[in-house]
């Protein structure tokens, strides 16, 4: 595992209250993610279901990690926990050197499935939304949202409402919204699942370009093996309920990735390996 190589920066006892002179001002927030012994159980219809079991992750800053697994394996729940939206039943999430117990927009940006944009706000206002929650001054808000919309290739579409945008453009806006506070970590929950094949591939390329440009740590959940192999540095394969990590595959395809790589034997091999892992689990 690459965990050893991750230099965890200073993280002085956070609750100490005494402002360590300069350390406090230093952005100790790199995009490392460390998950240990994570478990999730929930009660529904009188039955206790174990959704996630013994999840361990160690993600170095700047890596692109894709989580794949059959539907219902809890991969989206795992992502919601990384976003601080759902509390795990057991285990610990350390992000940027600090325990994560609640949503922390300085640290983590989230892109949700399909269109989670607010239909009553324009593209620009949707991207500004996280900033406006924290009362960032208007001029700064406008500028930062504009920059991020330009980054995702939507300059000139600031004043459009979501219903005036295509599916791919809406997810670009979502990505811009995820990046607007400049968090070191970007989480994406099946962001392209509702898009057609062509848009999906070009959105993958877009995401890789943005990732290379910004150096974020990306955790990307999908059920598409092709998408996983095309995008990832590392693929984390999960089993069906209870969701466990059954394999971690390092993707050694060179970057930048190209569409032609999908036809190479190595790509097929990777897909085959993941598929077998998933299938053997599904049979069990």
């Amino acid at each position, binding site marked *: 595992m690459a965990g050893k190589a991750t230099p965890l920066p200073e993280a002085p006892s956070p609750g100490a209250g005494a402002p360590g002179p300069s350390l406090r001002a230093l952005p100790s927030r790199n995009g490392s993610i460390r998950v240990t012994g994570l478990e999730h159980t929930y009660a529904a219809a009188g039955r206790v279901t174990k959704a996630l079991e013994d999840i361990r992750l160690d993600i170095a800053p700047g890596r692109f990690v894709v989580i794949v697994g059959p539907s219902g394996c809890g991969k989206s729940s795992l992502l919601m926990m990384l976003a601080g939206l759902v509390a795990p039943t057991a285990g610990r999430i350390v992000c940027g050197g600090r325990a994560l117990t609640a*949503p*922390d*927009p300085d640290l*983590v940006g*989230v892109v949700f499935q*399909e269109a989670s944009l*607010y239909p009553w706000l324009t593209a620009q206002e949707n991207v500004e939304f996280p900033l406006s*929650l*924290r009362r960032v001054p208007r001029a700064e808000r406008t500028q930062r949202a504009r920059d991020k919309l330009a980054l995702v290739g939507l300059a000139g579409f600031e004043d459009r409402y*979501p219903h005036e945008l295509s599916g791919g453009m809406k997810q670009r806006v979502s990505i811009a919204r995820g990046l607007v506070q400049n968090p070191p970590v970007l989480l994406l929950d099946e962001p392209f699942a509702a898009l057609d094949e062509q848009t999906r591939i070009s959105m993958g390329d877009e995401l890789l370009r943005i990732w290379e440009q910004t150096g974020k740590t990306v955790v990307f959940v999908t059920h598409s093996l092709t998408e996983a192999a095309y995008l990832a540095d590392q693929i984390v394969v999960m089993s069906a309920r209870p969701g466990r990590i059954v394999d971690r595959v390092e993707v050694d395809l060179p970057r930048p990735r190209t569409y032609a790589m999908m036809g190479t034997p190595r790509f097929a091999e990777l897909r085959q390996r993941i598929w077998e892992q998933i299938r053997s689990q599904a049979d069990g």
Partner: protein
Amino acid sequence: MSADASTRGAAATRRAGGWAVWLGALAVLFGTWQAALSLGLLSPMLLPPASAVLATAWDLVRRPDFLGDVGVTLAEVAVAFLVAVPLGIALGVAISESDYWSRVLRPIVFLVFSIPKTIFLPMFILAFGITFAQKVGFGVFSTVFIVLISTFSALESVKGDHVRVARAYGATRRQIALRVYLPSMAPVLLEAVRLAMIFNVTGILLAEMYAARAGLGQAVATWGQNYMLRELLAGILLIAAAAILFTEAVRWLEARCEHWRT
């Protein structure tokens, strides 16, 4: 940009079409009215000529006693509306906040909603006498259930994803209420406002027609009892026009947030 212009152009055409339909409907109404009279289908004893009714309407709107009636009714309608709508929304939200009260009270709300409210009018007279409070109380009672039920469905129209996004970006409860719930619920609540006004005016006019010393309902009832058809029809035309104007104004607002529903 040219796309915007053409959208605006299309909207203008639609608006012009809307006006044409309105004028057409009015022309058909008054046309059939005059035709029925001149063909002898209806006796002028039952249906005075439209011109006479319109002249009476014009007369009425300048008569102080009629304007006094209008003022009384408007005051009752406004107070009942301003009580019933916030009350219904607040109750609806409060009930939905708790799983337990949701399960207990929702079915009751739906049951009571299905009872015709008119049969309770005598109770209101017994409780409040023939007063302003009685009219307002009955107006509120007639209105509050439809607002409650609309609030339930407005709350259901809030998307889980939209709430989750706000939470992920650190929104407080208050911010979630004001920046996610309120705009999400707005289209359904506007519809509720429109329906509320219809229920409210119906209730108050009925209360006035049944027992009152002043107000439009009382005036209309008196004209009917005294066979003053011109005044009666003029009153009906004026009330109809006012009701339609209010409803259309709210519908115009609704149309403005139509794309929120997607």
